[in-house]
């Protein structure tokens, strides 16, 4: 992973000093809450339901073992021994003391980490494919470009006070695992007719209150122009994005208001003013970043599994099932990427204890090069495991509760923290996620249902990405009571937004409603490979709606 140089380190240290001073002035009454608020948000600090919440950046989801150990230490020392991985590849601490936050930031800076721009109306942490650098279908390693964007966006003087938050995603592979159609800017690596690699630029996608897919702004942007083009988009947005209404301030609303054609014209005109200027990327810089990323020294291993491994897989159905579900092919022969499920039945999705963090750090060294990935599905990944080591790793993961073979299945629920922590929530998410994962804890049943994404958000802000879940659950407030609206038919790639099936349900009705949805699916699917979403696309939402609300109707008629 990227190693800071002296300047990277100095800037992060200077940020800690700056925030220490700002916090002191706030606590001394020299800085009003109104002035402090935007400043603390740009350091990831929210005032939440119970206490402040600190969101720490994990740039493009890559962590080193020593960094994860430091996060464990922070969880133990400054929090209640738990961290929560968010859907944007960051980690959140829900119980720090405001006065201690500068110390936490100093602890982070000592391991090349920070909370810079993890909140606020600025360019946020850039996200990418959690299999970046190891995926077999990769055109370019997106981490290099994510780091370019990280540096460019860090303390960008012009774009610190945008109309609203701004999220960029980069995908370097054929398959879109970074949700580029639902970001403010999505960059998707593509090859042109001459075989050169560039980015397809998508602008104005997003979930939240007004979910929409982005607009294709440029089919092919040559890589050197990445930063000048981003600046042009941001400048148009910064000048013309709405500031009078928070709900209409995202770039997607601007793109729609101007019309995509006019928006594109504005961006291209602005870009021509800066194109080929000093911010044009140079190969030396890409090479420098790549060198600082220190690609691991992989051993040359046979691609095929050994006889011994094959035998073990044949004899141990648990191991086999786990390998099918939680183990991913690797670019390098003989290696595999392993997903550690943070979604055991009844677990709060994305939550991890300090002891578990330490354990994962140890495992990443024992079974890899000391690197860990955080996925937007709120799981962890050991990216470089020797395939022959899989049985040993499986045993270790089982003992730590990370081996639930449910990646891609219904119980791999994505969920925001919801009303248990978040001040904006309409309803709690975690108890609903727990109830569902308990109800559908039976692995055989999960396998029978097959691949299914279930996403939960506690409010319209959609941090749990409910619109792109095959089944989405949204917390709503009905006269002060918690209710849940269900959508079906959403998907992440190719991106599609789910549709609401009917009136919101009470929490205890939700698992039953899921049962009904699955009944219809299992009756209607043509074969085992036909996904839940595909059935929804084929037969529409009516049959699902009918079934879920049938009982209610009966009750009304009786």
């Amino acid at each position, binding site marked *: 992973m990227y190693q800071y140089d002296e*300047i990277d380190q*100095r*800037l992060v240290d*200077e*940020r800690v000093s*700056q925030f220490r001073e*700002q916090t002191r002035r706030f606590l001394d009454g020299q*800085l009003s809450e109104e*002035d402090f608020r*935007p*400043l603390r948000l740009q350091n990831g600090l929210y005032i939440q339901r119970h206490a402040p919440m600190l969101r720490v950046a994990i740039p493009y989801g890559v962590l080193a073992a020593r960094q994860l150990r430091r996060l464990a230490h922070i969880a133990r020392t400054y929090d209640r021994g738990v961290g929560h991985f968010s859907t944007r590849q960051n980690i959140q601490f829900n119980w720090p003391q405001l006065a201690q936050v500068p110390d936490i930031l100093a602890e982070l800076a000592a391991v090349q980490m920070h909370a810079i721009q993890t909140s606020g*109306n600025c360019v946020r942490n850039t996200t990418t494919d959690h299999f970046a650098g190891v995926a077999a279908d990769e055109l*370019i390693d997106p981490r*290099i470009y994510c780091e370019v964007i990280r*540096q*460019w*966006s*860090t*303390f*960008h*003087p*012009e*774009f*610190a*006070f*945008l*109309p609203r938050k701004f999220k960029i995603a980069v995908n370097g592979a054929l398959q879109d695992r970074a949700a580029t159609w639902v970001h403010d800017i999505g960059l998707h690596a593509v090859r042109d007719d001459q075989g*050169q*690699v*560039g980015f397809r630029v998508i602008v104005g996608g997003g979930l939240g209150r007004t979910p929409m897919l982005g607009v294709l702004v440029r089919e092919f942007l*040559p*890589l*050197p122009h990445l*930063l000048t083009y981003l600046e042009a988009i941001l*400048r148009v947005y*910064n*000048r013309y994005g709405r*500031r009078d209404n928070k709900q209409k301030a995202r770039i997607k609303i601007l793109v729609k208001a101007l019309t995509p054609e006019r928006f594109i014209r504005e961006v291209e005109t602005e870009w021509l*003013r800066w194109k080929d*200027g*000093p*911010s*044009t*990327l*140079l*190969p*030396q*810089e*890409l*090479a*420098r970043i*790549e060198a600082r990323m220190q690609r691991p020294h992989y051993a040359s291993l046979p691609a095929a599994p050994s006889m011994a491994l094959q035998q073990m897989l044949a004899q141990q159905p648990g191991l086999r099932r786990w390998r099918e579900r939680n183990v991913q092919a690797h670019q390098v022969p003989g290696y595999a990427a392993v997903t550690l499920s943070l979604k055991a039945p009844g677990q709060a999705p994305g939550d991890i204890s300090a002891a578990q963090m330490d354990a994962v750090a140890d495992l990443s060294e024992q079974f890899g090069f000391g690197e860990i990935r955080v996925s937007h599905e709120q799981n962890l990944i050991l990216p470089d495991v020797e395939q022959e080591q899989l049985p040993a790793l499986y045993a270790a993961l089982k003992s730590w509760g990370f081996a639930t073979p449910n990646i891609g299945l219904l119980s791999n629920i994505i969920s925001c923290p919801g009303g248990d922590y978040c001040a904006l929530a309409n309803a709690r998410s975690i108890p609903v996620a727990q109830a569902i994962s308990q109800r559908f804890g039976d692995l055989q049943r999960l396998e029978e249902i097959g691949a299914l994404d279930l996403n939960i958000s506690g409010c319209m802000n959609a941090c749990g990405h409910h619109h792109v879940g095959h089944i989405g659950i949204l917390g709503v407030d009905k006269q002060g009571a918690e209710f849940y609206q269900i959508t079906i038919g959403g998907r992440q790639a190719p991106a599609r937004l789910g549709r609401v099936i009917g009136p919101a349900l009470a929490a205890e009705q939700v698992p039953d409603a899921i049962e009904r949805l699955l009944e219809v699916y299992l009756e209607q699917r043509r074969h085992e490979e036909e996904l839940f979403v595909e059935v929804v696309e084929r037969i529409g939402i009516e049959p699902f709606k009918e079934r879920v609300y049938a009982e209610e109707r009966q009750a009304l008629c009786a």
Partner: protein
Amino acid sequence: MNRTDIAQEMILDGVIVRDPYQLVMSAQDLQALWADLSREAELAQALRDGCGVLAPLTLMQAQKEAFLVLPGRKGLIVQPGDEPESFAAELERLDLIAVDFPLFTDGRGHSLARTLRDHYGFKGELRAQGDVFEDTVHYLARCGFNAFVPRSGVPPVQLLQGFHTFSESYQAAVDCPNPLFLRRILAQREEMPAPAVFTGNTP
């Protein structure tokens, strides 16, 4: 009208100065100023000697010639949403553009400043006024502002602490048109032969 009590303290190019500009808010103010000028020769001299007149963009647009032919320096107050196109033609005759920040979190003025400096090549005084305090001046300076009027209650000296928050910056801005990566490469190039031309492919 009394023009001596409006001079406020501010920062210009890193030092505390008294604002030499006097404010003209309306057509009546402007008329009165011309009347004063015809009576008092020393006033015209004072304007020529470095004082100036500052007026809102709307007044300049309504009274273009009466304003632009005033002796001495002229400045405009613009709002963050104003289009630079609407006064670009007059930039050569202007010595100061003061951008108003109704709230420090309104970032439109940052892009406006950058556009004025880098696209229109404006070399005069670029002033940030309104909700300006020590936590905001670093970014403002990078965007091309060289003058700062602090919000009420903030002594100008307090702003001075804000300029040195960060000792380096990654991205290009008005204060430093070459991004860090380019400066690094240029520094190396002085020691080494020229590198290969960039074709657009990943190395």
